[in-house]
C-alpha cells in the first residue's frame, strides 16, 4: 500500500494516554442545558419553541434557515426555560442566542420514522435525513453535512475518505469511538458512500492508535471499506493532508476536495449519520475528551449538547491545581475560554485544563529568521514573512504571500523558538480583511443607494420643472384662448 510523502508538520507531545484507556462514560444530566442556535458554519437556526414549552429528546427546537444552515434539537426531554443570550463557547466571551432547557430527567425520545432497510433509501433521502438530524462535521469545522453530501453527489465524487487522524494532542474522542462503536461507524461510512455514490471508501487512522485500527479493521472486514494506517504527525487530520497521504492527490487552492473527486468526513460524523438514518436519532450529544494536566481523571464523556463545561470537569474529579488555561478543542487549534459556564456544542471535541508547564514559553522574543516555521508549515507558507508584514500593517503584502492559504494549524507558532504568536497575527489579519470586505460590500450598497437617490431627486426636480412648464403652457394657452375669445367677442 502506497502512502505519499508529506512536507511540513510537527510532532508535538501526544499526551493521549491520559484519556485513551478509559471507556466512554455518559455525562449525568446537568440541571440546565444551554443549546445555542448556531453551532455550525452558516446562518443561525430560528427557534420554533417558546418559553414554557415542554420538549422531548430529539425534538426540533430551531430550524435552519437558508441554504447553509442546520437545525437544532433538544438534547433531552424537559422544559424550555429561556430563549435569549447566553455566553457562547467562543474566545470573545460574547453571548449568542441560546435555548435553555431544564431537563425533566426522563429522557423521553421524540419518535422519528426509521427505515427498514436504510440502504434502500434514495441517496438524496440519506442526505436529507442527515440534514434534518442537524448533523454537522464533527471534525472541527462544523460545516452542515447535508450541504456537503448534496454538493458532492451533484459534482460526482469517486472516493470517500473518512478522517480518523485525530492528530491534535490530548484528544482521544475519535480513538475511543472507533474502538467502541466501530460497526456503527462502518455502517455510517457505507451510508455516506451510498449517499454520494463514491466507488470506494478509505479510512485513514494515525499509526499511534493500534487498538482503533484493529477494531475498525475487524468491523470493516466483511465490507469493502478499506482501513489505512497513516504516519502520526500533526496536522495529519487536516483533510487535504489526509487526502494527500492516502491518495497522493492535491486539492487546488481556493477549491474544495470535491474538485478532485473526494469527500472527507470525520469518523464521528459517520457514526452520527448512522444514528440519524438507522435509529432516527438527531445529533443531540457527542463524545468529548476531558483532559489536561490540571484534570484529576481525564477521560472521554458522551455529553448532551448544551451541558456547561463545568459539569464535565466535575465528573472527571475536578482540578488537581488551578488550571492556567481552559481550552475548547485541542491545544493546537482549540480556543481558550474564560469561563466554565459556556456550553458544549456539536463542534466541541475536547475540553482541556492546562497547566503553565504544558503551555510553555509565552514571552515573545524577536524573530531570528531561523525558518523553523517555514519548515513546519504544511501549506508551504513563509510564516515569518507574513507575520512581519501583518505587524507593519501591510495586509496586501501578507495576502500576496499567501495569508489566505493559511489553515491556522499553529504548527509554526508551536515550533517558533522566539515564541512569536504567528497564528494570532494571521487570524488578526484575516479578521481585519473580513471586516474590510464587509465594509466594502456595504460601500457598494451605499453607492447604489446614493445613486438611486440622486436619480430620484433629479427626476423629481425634472418632473417639477415639467409640471411647471406644463402649467405655464396651459396657463398661456388659457390666456391665449381667453384673449382669442375676447377678440372674437370684441369682433362679434
Amino acid at each position, binding site marked *: 500500500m502506497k502512502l505519499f510523502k508529506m512536507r511540513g508538520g510537527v510532532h508535538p507531545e501526544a499526551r493521549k494516554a491520559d484519556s485513551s484507556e478509559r471507556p466512554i462514560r455518559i455525562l449525568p444530566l446537568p440541571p440546565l442545558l444551554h443549546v445555542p442556535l448556531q453551532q455550525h458554519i452558516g446562518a443561525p437556526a430560528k427557534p420554533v419553541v417558546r418559553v414554557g414549552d415542554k420538549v422531548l429528546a430529539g425534538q426540533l427546537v430551531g430550524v435552519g434557515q437558508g441554504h447553509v444552515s442546520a437545525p437544532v434539537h433538544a438534547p433531552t426531554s424537559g422544559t424550555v426555560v429561556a430563549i435569549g443570550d447566553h*455566553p457562547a463557547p467562543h474566545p470573545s466571551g460574547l453571548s449568542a442566542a441560546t435555548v435553555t432547557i431544564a431537563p425533566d430527567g426522563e429522557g423521553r425520545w421524540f419518535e422519528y420514522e426509521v427505515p427498514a432497510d436504510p440502504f434502500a433509501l434514495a441517496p438524496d433521502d440519506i442526505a436529507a435525513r442527515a440534514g434534518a438530524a442537524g448533523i454537522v462535521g464533527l471534525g472541527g469545522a462544523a460545516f452542515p453535512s447535508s450541504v456537503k453530501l448534496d454538493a458532492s453527489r451533484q459534482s460526482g465524487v469517486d472516493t470517500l475518505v473518512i478522517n480518523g487522524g485525530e492528530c491534535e494532542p490530548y484528544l482521544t474522542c475519535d480513538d475511543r469511538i472507533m474502538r467502541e462503536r466501530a460497526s456503527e461507524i462502518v455502517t455510517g461510512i457505507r451510508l455516506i458512500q451510498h449517499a454520494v455514490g463514491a466507488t470506494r471508501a478509505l479510512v485513514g487512522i494515525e499509526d499511534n492508535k493500534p487498538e482503533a485500527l484493529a477494531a475498525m479493521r475487524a468491523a470493516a472486514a466483511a465490507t469493502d471499506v478499506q482501513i489505512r494506517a497513516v504516519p502520526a504527525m500533526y496536522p495529519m487530520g487536516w483533510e487535504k493532508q489526509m487526502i494527500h497521504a492516502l491518495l497522493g492527490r492535491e486539492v487546488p487552492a481556493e477549491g474544495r476536495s470535491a474538485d478532485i473527486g473526494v469527500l472527507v468526513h470525520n469518523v464521528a460524523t459517520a457514526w452520527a449519520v448512522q444514528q440519524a438514518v438507522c435509529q432516527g436519532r438527531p445529533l443531540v450529544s457527542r463524545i468529548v475528551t476531558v483532559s489536561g494536566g490540571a484534570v484529576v481523571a481525564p477521560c472521554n464523556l458522551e455529553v448532551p449538547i448544551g451541558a456547561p463545561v463545568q459539569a464535565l470537569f466535575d465528573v472527571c474529579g475536578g482540578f488537581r491545581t488551578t488550571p492556567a488555561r481552559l481550552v475548547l478543542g485541542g491545544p493546537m487549534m482549540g480556543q481558550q475560554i474564560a469561563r466554565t459556564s459556556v456550553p458544549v456544542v456539536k463542534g466541541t471535541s475536547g475540553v482541556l485544563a492546562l497547566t503553565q508547564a504544558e503551555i510553555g514559553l509565552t514571552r515573545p522574543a524577536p524573530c531570528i529568521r531561523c525558518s523553523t516555521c517555514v519548515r513546519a508549515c504544511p501549506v508551504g507558507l513563509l510564516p515569518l514573512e507574513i507575520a512581519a508584514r501583518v505587524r507593519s500593517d501591510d495586509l496586501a503584502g501578507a495576502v500576496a504571500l499567501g495569508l489566505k492559504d493559511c489553515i491556522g494549524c499553529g504548527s509554526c507558532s508551536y515550533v517558533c523558538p522566539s515564541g512569536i504568536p504567528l497564528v494570532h497575527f494571521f*487570524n488578526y489579519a484575516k479578521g481585519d480583511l473580513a471586516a474590510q470586505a464587509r465594509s466594502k460590500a456595504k460601500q457598494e450598497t451605499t453607492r447604489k443607494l446614493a445613486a438611486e437617490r440622486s436619480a430620484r431627486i433629479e427626476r423629481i426636480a425634472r418632473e417639477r420643472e415639467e409640471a411647471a412648464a406644463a402649467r405655464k403652457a396651459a396657463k398661456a394657452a388659457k390666456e391665449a384662448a381667453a384673449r382669442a375669445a375676447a377678440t372674437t367677442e370684441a369682433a362679434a
Partner: protein
Amino acid sequence: MIAALTSLTVLGTSLGLILGLAARFFKVEGNPLVEEIEALLPGTQCGQCGYPGCTGAAQALANGNAPLTLCPPGGRAVVAALAARLGMEADLSGVEDAGPRIAEVREELCIGCTRCYKVCPTDAVLGAAKHIHAVFSEACTACGSCVDVCPTEAILLRPLAPTLQSWGWGKPGLQPLAIAQGMAA
C-alpha cells in the same frame, strides 16, 4: 568661435524642434486616474472631506493635493485601497476608525420634521412627515449628516456592538485581548 556658436546653435535649435514636435505628437489627453480613484471612494457625496463630493475629492487626490486619509466615512479600508492604487505609503495611525457605527433616532425626541430624511445621502432614514423616523441599518454609512440637521438632537451615532460574526482577534502585542466588558462571570 564662429564654429562653436553655429554648431551649438544648430544643435540647440534642432533639439528644441524635436522636443516641440514630440510634445505635439505624443500629446496625452485626460487623466484616467481620477475615474479610477473615484471608483474607490464611497460615493456618498457627503462632502465631509471638504471637497464638493467624491469627484472633487478624487481630483484632489489625483493631483496629489489631498491626503489619503481625507474621507472619514471610508475609514481604513478606503485609505488602504487608495494607498495601493497610488503606490503611496499610508499613515494609518492618523485615521480614526471608531469602528462601525450607526445612526439611531431617539423616539422620545423625534418630532417628525423629516429634515434627516431629506439629507440622508443613502435614503437610510425611513418615515414620513409628522411621524417618528427610524434608521435602516443596512444603508446607514454613519456619515452624520442627519445628526447635524436634527433640530432636537434626536439622532446620535452609536457604535455597533461586536457580534460573534464581526468580532476579530486584536493585533498581538498591542492590545492584549480582553474579555468584552461586563461579561466577567
